[in-house]
């Protein structure tokens, strides 16, 4: 019987020596805008903004609860009097909206974070705008879905792709995909939102048809924004898929530390418009040029090598956060799902047979029939609801950390009370699997390296070269 365990351990040993990177849909979208911009995030770590997205996050939370509640309940296709329905939805959502706003403000106050005076007003405004957009454009042309899932993380190991989809509308014939934006789409110039939407659509294809290139289940994808809904044309989607795949491969190769030639677009909406981040981008471009011309001072070059060694060590850690998922995928490919799950359960990577007991705020208590729970406090887990005919890593899931394990009960701490509410609506009624997971904290580790890289340049590169 030990041979099963040895087999899984060998898979771990093998994969630890491989590249287990996954590229997020948002990162692919950034690379589509400009490959230099992707490199600015990884490996350089020059985060472009310090903004607190409290309003946007709150709206996302509200939408994630309201979609399967008042919005779905009031879905009427082909209606003309959309304003009335929108009003009804907004009225019926008021309890959810107020609860979410209260929770967010409570959390922000707990951390002494700054909350704008008109925070509640802003959130309500954006939510109302999204609801109006949905009723006017989406409900008019599309049937009521049979089920709505929100905040779905899908992992496609084969194509090194992962993403979190805002909402999936399920129909007997296929699916529709929604993405919320809390700002006006007409004010944006980069096209980033469109690429993120298409990248997520590839993931949805994978979830419903087990292949990202199988479009037979795809009904529509759209961005719901403050003043309407944007539906990319089918030709646009088809045309952009290749671009998504090329940039996904580019991003994956960069994360793996391979040398890839960067293709700068004819127009970069960041550098060519001098937006936030353009200075950083030009800094690294200048660095590369000076290195190519052999003009970098030896001390600086030596230190730059130290910085890059550290950066790639951090990226290796980022890859390791996906290790468990790769092992699951490898085992399933090798032995089939049931046998793989049995082996993985035996070694304690995942465990099955949990059912939801109750929750207190963001803490959820699950129980199982025996007391052999192979988890311990502080471990991060992915709670997966086993949906029929879906591959394990594309099933509905949420992330949580283990608080306590006592006999046959396990206490999990979710990210927020809203995440628990969402899980109660769409996750807990499925057979539950707890899969070991890891947190990805690499971005915050890269940032100070970027700061010191710039500092070293400021100090060690002669001023005449900096011009």
């Amino acid at each position: 019987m030990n041979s099963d365990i040895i087999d899984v351990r060998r898979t771990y040993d093998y994969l630890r020596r491989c590249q287990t990177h996954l590229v997020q849909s948002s990162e692919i979208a950034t690379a589509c805008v400009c490959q230099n911009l992707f490199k600015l995030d990884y490996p350089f770590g020059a985060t472009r903004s310090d903004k607190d997205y409290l309003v946007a996050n709150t709206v996302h939370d509200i939408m994630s609860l309201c979609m399967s509640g008042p919005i779905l309940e009031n879905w009427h296709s082909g209606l003309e009097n959309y304003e009335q329905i929108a009003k009804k939805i907004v009225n019926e959502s008021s309890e959810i909206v107020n609860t979410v706003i209260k929770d967010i403000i409570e959390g922000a106050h707990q951390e002494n974070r700054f909350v704008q005076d008109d925070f509640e007003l802003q959130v309500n405004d954006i939510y109302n705008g999204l609801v109006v957009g949905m009723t006017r454009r989406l409900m008019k042309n599309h049937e009521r879905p049979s089920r709505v899932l929100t905040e779905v993380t899908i992992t496609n190991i084969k194509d090194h792709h992962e993403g979190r989809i805002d909402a999936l509308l399920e129909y007997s014939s296929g699916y529709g995909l929604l993405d919320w934006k809390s700002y006006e789409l007409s004010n944006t110039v980069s096209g980033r939102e469109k690429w993120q939407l298409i990248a997520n659509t590839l993931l949805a294809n994978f979830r419903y048809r087990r292949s990202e290139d199988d479009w037979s289940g795809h009904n529509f994808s759209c961005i719901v924004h403050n003043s309407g809904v944007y539906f990319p044309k089918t030709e646009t989607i088809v045309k952009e898929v290749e671009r998504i795949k090329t940039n996904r491969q580019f991003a994956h190769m960069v994360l793996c530390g391979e040398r890839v030639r960067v293709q700068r677009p004819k127009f970069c909406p960041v550098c060519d418009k001098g937006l936030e981040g353009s200075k950083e981008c030009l800094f690294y471009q200048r660095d590369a040029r000076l290195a190519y011309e052999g003009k970098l001072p030896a001390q600086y070059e030596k230190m730059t090598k130290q910085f890059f060694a550290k950066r790639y060590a951090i990226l290796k850690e980022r890859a390791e956060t996906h290790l468990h998922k790769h092992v699951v995928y490898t085992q399933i490919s090798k032995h089939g799902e049931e046998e793989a799950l049995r082996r993985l359960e035996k070694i304690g990577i995942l465990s099955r047979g949990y059912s939801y007991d109750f929750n207190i705020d963001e803490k959820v208590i699950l129980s199982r029939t025996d007391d052999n729970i192979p988890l311990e406090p502080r471990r991060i887990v992915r709670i997966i609801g086993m949906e029929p005919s879906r591959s394990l890593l594309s099933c509905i899931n949420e992330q949580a950390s283990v608080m306590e394990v006592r006999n046959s009960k396990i206490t999990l701490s979710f990210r927020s009370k809203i995440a628990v509410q969402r899980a109660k609506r769409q996750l807990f009624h499925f057979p539950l699997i707890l899969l070991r997971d890891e947190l990805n904290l690499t971005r915050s580790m890269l940032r100070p390296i970027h700061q010191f890289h710039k500092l070293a340049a400021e100090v060690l590169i002669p001023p005449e070269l900096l011009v």
Partner: protein
Amino acid sequence: MTIKLNPDQSRILNWRVKSGGVAGVIGPAGCGKTTTGSFLAVKMICEGYAKNVLLVAFTNSAANEFARELSMVLGPEGSKFLCVRSGYAPGADPRLPIPFSNNIEFVRAKKIVICTTQSLKRLSTSIKFENMIIDEAGIERLEHLLSPFALGINQLGIHLMKENISYETNNIIELASKCGIIATVVGDPKQSRPIGLADYDLSAMEWVLKCAKYDTLFTTHRLPDRLAMLVDEFADYGGLNSAPEIASRRFGAEYAIDKNYKEILNPEEVITWVNLNGNEEMGGPSSWYNEVEAKACVRICCEIKRVAPSKSISIVTRYTEQRRTISKYLQHLDIETRVLTTTGALGTQADIVIFSLVRNNPERLVGALGSLQDLNVAISRSKEKLIIVGSFEMMLNGLSYSHNSNSRHKQNFPQKLARLVNEKYGMVVTAPSILCN
């Protein structure tokens, strides 16, 4: 202030308040690293050496420990007035008088800010610190040090200093020092090492020791004489000694000890190795457990609880699966005892420590248990008595490798420990039959 500093601590305090740049302080087990750091922060503020000080720890529990020490040094009112705990709200201990906040203005108004490395991103980059103390740097990587350092860069001064710096800076630590960052990096590379760091790479602490000045604390207030001597010789500290007031501390039972445990709990012996041959089993992707040892540890723990109910006990092991196995048995018996991995045990102490070795195989592969850091942590948590449970033969003849990239010769640390316990500082006893099934 009611806490008295020993001569080592006072020397380091006087050195660091007057010197700038980045410097290291090595602190073996129980030498008061956190106390020294807290005093240093208070002295800097109270005597006007710095306008504000950032105290950084790797874990929330260590950050709370800093906050606790500061509350003791300054008193509840003083610490409430001068200090703020920042970062991740659920990680902060709410029982401490120091307020929690991430609000930039509130944080800016305080003199001493306590935060974890990972949570520093929650502090605005516009806040600058004149001085910083970074604890647990042994477990940190160089990149971890850069997060606090980034908050200490003196941008205005850089231009003035530029001429002095040019072309003489070889590494990041030197660059930081020359750019006006004043940081005291505290840790012990012989107790901890970052998880997953390549053998050839250096931890943050090792970088500081390589590139900057450092001093060592040599007086332990935790380990009794024989244990201090064992740890000193095992880890090669070069002079670790017990503080006089605790040197002769021994385990004392309040009730008569069962005859099966008489040898194991002998009050005369500070270090006892219970030679036990249980079989190791694989658990998890890279962990191990040993049922026989787990049961033996729990039984010994029960006996200690019976004969000395007031004593605190910790069970320490290298492997998470063994920790889980032991915790499960303790839970069934409804016994409250801390079970820790060597990583989790860092910074903790107990009256009696039971160390479960786990590894025992015909190939004599000791694996990760053989690292200097893990063994050193496991043997240096105890205030009165250390009980090692596991195969003596396996450790004495096991094949090991060293994680310490600084050591010129790869040493067999399990063998060294077995020899030192058997020949100089402790006693190896055969496990009584009651522990063998």
